[in-house]
């Protein structure tokens, strides 16, 4: 089975996505979680680029730009919240923020 470059691009994107997801699940540090999310988002972006390449369209790259912008704003707010978390708990442990449950 020949996937071609776009096909391999998708496979790479999926692998990156899985790595990012694994990071979200495995890391306790909020910063690391944010970075992992970034990896997931960019994996999706990579998939768009690969798909766009396959169809010879620019749309995939446009979507990637959107994703970049949005990811940046997500991280901006994420960092702000991380800052507040650190100020309140003196740590960046995401599990520390688990007072609400049940």
């Amino acid at each position, binding site marked *: 089975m020949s996937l071609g470059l776009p096909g391999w691009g998708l496979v790479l994107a999926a692998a990156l996505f899985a790595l990012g997801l694994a990071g979200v699940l495995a890391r306790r540090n909020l910063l690391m979680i944010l970075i992992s999310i970034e990896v997931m988002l960019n994996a999706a972006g990579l998939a768009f680029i690969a798909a766009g390449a396959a169809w010879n369209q620019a749309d995939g790259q446009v*979507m990637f730009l959107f994703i970049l912008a949005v990811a940046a704003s997500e991280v901006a707010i994420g960092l702000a919240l991380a800052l507040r978390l650190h100020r309140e708990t003196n740590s960046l442990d995401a599990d520390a923020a688990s007072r609400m449950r049940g």
Partner: protein
Amino acid sequence: MNGGSWNAIAPWLALGATPVAAMLAIALRRSHRATLWITVAGFGAGLLRIRPAARAAPLAVTPLLRVDGFALYFTALIAGAALVTALLAYPALERREERREEFYVLLGVAALGAATLAASDHFASFFLGLETLSVALYGLAAYPRRDPLALEAGIKYLVLAAASAAFLLLGMALIYASTGALGFARLAGALPAAPPSLLAPGAALILVGVGFKLGLVPFHLWTPDVYQGAPAPAAGFIATASKAGVFAVLMRFFFVFGGLDSWRTVSAVVALAIASMLGGNLLALRQRNLKRLLGYSSIAHMGYLLVALLAARYAVALATATAGFYFLAYFVTTLAAFGLIAALTTERGEPQEIADLRGLFWRRPFPATVLAAAMLSLAGIPLTAGFLAKFYLVAAGAAAALWMLLLVLVISSVIGLFYYLRVMMALFAPAEEAAAPLAPLPAGQGWLLGALLAALFWIGLFPQPFLRMILGLPLG
């Protein structure tokens, strides 16, 4: 962009201009009251532009947006919800926060995002609307600066929403890869030729993103935590506007593709519906925190709405009308409930525990009546809007012969009754068991809640004008 187009997207423009104006005003001079009025005026303008826009509809504005009756109806709901939220938030912010004005900015941005979703006709606008909404909601959820629970809510919402957005994007990418199209209309044309090996997982991943936003089981876990941690007005907005926007785009998806059959996700949606109806209600059963309880309740309600969505396969018009009416009823009800919590907020915090409300009826009949009516409406008891909503929902389900789902709906809503009754029981507990007194109701809030209460009964008793409006605003 011709004149018609401008007219058609005027409501969105008004919503977009509102936060900008508010930000500018804040930059000039911080005034809570002025910011509120600017916001109210902006949302009001958006609402006022709905009717002219309807005259121009249906119309595609750029490949990204489609302005039709359906989009306008949901935009009106969202703008209305934002307006009410702003008014409700005012006294609570006044009492508890030192930086109050940015709340309105975030609210405006969120409203714009939700409204964009309602009109989006393209993966790009879908994604952008969703993220505009989400990013603003993180801020709203975590708004109270001294409240660790709000922070926790914000963090949880952010991490999970961002992760689920990644799922959504990956799903879109997969579909794009298999069809080469991003706009819904073109997608519909390209679907039959597309290989299912990417399509099906792609659709499933999109469902993950949507399911997260709607709080469907098993993507619901954030819901109670965020509802509890976020300030009551923000929680109310999350419960209403954000869900309506996402549901609207889902509905349009359905409409454009003539059901989900071509997406091979019907059984997935059925599973989500059943899990959400049962899960939401079961989880709420012994909940003592009113806001968490409302969170679980919203999970169940979104499950109910999926029944309408599935019914759209067979009875599109009835199903869209159902969704429209259901959201109307749900908006009024939920805003009344959260609004009441907001209105009774003291410097110490919100009256979140059900125990805080014990015996309220005997000393403060009006707020107790509002909350009781909201509970009855959520439970779908006659006289209230919720009853007709449920009636409509069952009608849609019956028209589509979804008997299994209806049975689950019936059983789960009876389970749901149990916790609504627990709230009522607390409200009407004997006066001598009453909890500590709550904050007095500001006069403005009283009127606002009174209006919501009146609407609750009005819609429940004389729904004809609303029905006519909904039926006059079709998808198209």
